[in-house]
C-alpha cells in the first residue's frame, strides 16, 4: 500500500513538475468552456447536459495526452530499468500510476465548476443529473485512462503511444454508437451496445446511476490495468 502511495505521489508531482499539467488544464478548460457557452446561450435552457455530451469527444483526445508519457517516457529515458529493479510489485506500480493519472483527471474535471455556477445563476437546474454527470464523466475518464496507459506500455515513443491510445479509445467508444449499430447484423447489436463506452455514459448523463453502468466502467478499468500488468511482465517472458 505504501508503495502505491509513493508511486502515486511521484507520478502526480511529475505532472506538475513539467509544463504538461498546466498546458493540459488550461487547454481543456478553455476548450470545454468555449464549446459549452457557444451552445448554451442559443439553446436558452439552464442545463449542463450539453457539457456532458461533449466530454466523450473531448476526452478522446485529451486523455491519451495525459497517459502517453506514463510508460513511454520511462522506456525512453531508461528509468524503466531503475523502476523495475526497485523492490516493487508490478501491480503496485500499475495501480500507483493509474491513481496518479486519475487524480489529475479528477482535479481537472472538478475545475469546470464555474460552468455549474453560471448555470445555477441563470436558472434552476436539477442537481441530480449534474452530480450523476460528473460521476459518469470521471468514471468514463478512468476507462479512457486505463486504455491510454495500456497503449503507453506498448511503445517507447510518446507520439505513437498517444495515437494508439486515441485509436483504441475511439474504437471502444464508437462500437456502441447508433450509426455502427445500424450497419452490423442485428444479433450482435446488444453486445456492441453493451461494450460501447458512450452508451453507458448517456444514461449516467441523464442522472440515472445504474449499477450496470458503474460495473461496466470498473470492468473496463480493471481489464486494461490487467493487460498493462501483463505487458510489463512480458519483459520477463522467455
Amino acid at each position, binding site marked *: 500500500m505504501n508503495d502505491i502511495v509513493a508511486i502515486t*505521489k*511521484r507520478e502526480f508531482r511529475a505532472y506538475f513538475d513539467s509544463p504538461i499539467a498546466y498546458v493540459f488544464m488550461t487547454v481543456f478548460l478553455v476548450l470545454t468552456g468555449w464549446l459549452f457557452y457557444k451552445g448554451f446561450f442559443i439553446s436558452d435552457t439552464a442545463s449542463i447536459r450539453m457539457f456532458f455530451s461533449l466530454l466523450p469527444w473531448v476526452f478522446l483526445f485529451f486523455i491519451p495526452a495525459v497517459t502517453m508519457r506514463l510508460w513511454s517516457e520511462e522506456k525512453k529515458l531508461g528509468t524503466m530499468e531503475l523502476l523495475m529493479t526497485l*523492490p516493487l510489485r508490478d501491480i503496485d506500480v500499475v495501480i500507483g500510476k493509474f491513481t496518479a493519472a486519475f487524480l489529475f483527471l479528477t482535479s481537472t474535471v472538478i475545475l469546470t465548476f464555474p460552468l455549474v455556477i453560471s448555470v445555477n445563476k441563470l436558472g434552476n437546474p436539477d442537481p441530480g443529473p449534474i452530480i450523476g454527470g460528473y460521476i459518469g464523466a470521471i468514471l468514463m475518464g478512468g476507462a479512457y485512462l486505463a486504455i491510454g496507459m495500456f497503449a503507453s506500455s506498448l511503445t517507447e515513443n510518446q507520439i505513437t503511444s498517444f495515437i494508439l491510445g486515441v485509436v483504441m479509445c475511439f474504437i471502444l467508444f464508437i462500437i456502441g454508437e447508433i450509426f455502427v449499430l445500424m450497419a452490423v447484423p442485428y444479433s450482435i447489436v446488444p453486445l456492441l451496445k453493451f461494450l460501447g463506452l458512450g452508451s453507458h455514459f448517456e444514461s449516467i448523463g441523464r442522472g440515472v446511476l445504474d449499477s450496470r453502468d458503474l460495473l461496466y466502467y470498473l470492468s473496463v478499468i480493471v481489464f486494461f490495468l490487467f493487460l498493462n500488468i501483463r505487458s510489463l511482465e512480458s519483459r*520477463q517472458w522467455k
Partner: protein
Amino acid sequence: MIEVKELTKRFGTTVAVRNVSFSVPAGQVLGFLGPNGAGKTTTMRILTGFIPADSGSASVGGFDIYTQSLDVRKKIGYLPENAPLYHDMDLPDFLQFIATVRKIPKNKRQKAIDKMVQTCGLESVLFKKIGELSKGFRQRVGLAQAMIHDPDILVLDEPTSGLDPNQIVEIRELIRQLGKEKTVILSTHILQEVTATCDRILIINDGKLVADGTPDNLAAQAAGDAILWCTLKAPADQLKTEISRMTFVKTIHYWKENGDRVRLGLRCAPGEDINERLFHLAVDKEWILLELHWETASLEDVFARLTT
C-alpha cells in the same frame, strides 16, 4: 553471496551471454571487464531482475532471481548504465522517493538522505532539478540512489563513466571502502579501474568468460611471454649472430639500428636469466650496454590477448 550457473541470453540471433557461470563470496569486489558489447550489462540486468535469461539459473544472497525476485531486489543496490533518472524531479524529492520505496523507516529517511548527499558530494546541487545536472553529478545521484538503503550487494554498471579524474579517484576510494563490508560487482572497460578497486577480475568477451582471477594473478598468466629490452653499442651483424645462438630467445620482437647503437626487444621464455647472459656477452665483446630491462606483462596485455 552470488551464484551464477550457466546463464545464456540471446537477443534475436546474437548471443549476448553464453554459458556464464561464476560465484562471488560475500565481501568481494568483483570487476567485470570486457570490450563494449561483451555482455557485461546484460549479465548485470539478469542479476538485478530487469530481464530474464534464456537458460541457466542464478541466486543472490540465497534467493533465486526468478522465483524470489522481490527479495533479490531488496538486497541489491543497482546503478544502471548511464544512471537513468527522473529528469523532472528535484533531487531531494527523488531521494525521498527512493528512500520510501526502499522501505527505510520514516524517522530514518532524512538521515539516510543526508548521509548519501554527503558521501556522494551532492551538497552543491541539492536544490536543482536532476535534468539540470551535469553527467558527473547524475552519475553521483545514481550512486546515491543505489546505496541509500545500505544494501549488502552493490551492482554498479560503469560507475565512473562521465566523471572527471578527481571524481573518479573519489568514487574508486568510496568503492574500496564499501568493498570492505559489502559485495560489489562493477563493470568497466577501464583497466586501471579494476586494478585500483577490485579483488577479483572476470574478463568477458563475446558473451563468454575468458579469464577469472586476481589482478596480479592474471598479469602473471600473461607474463609467459616477457620481452627484454636492451640497447647496445655494438656492430649490428655480429650482435645478430650472437643473439641467434641464444636458444631461449623465441623471436626478435623489435630491432632498430641507430648509428652505432642497436635497440632490440627479445621475446623470451620465462625463467631464463637472459639479461645476465646479455650482460656477460657485452662484457666479453666490450660492447657498451646502455639499457636493459624487462617489460612485465600488464593487465592490458592480458586483456588485449583475451579479447581480440
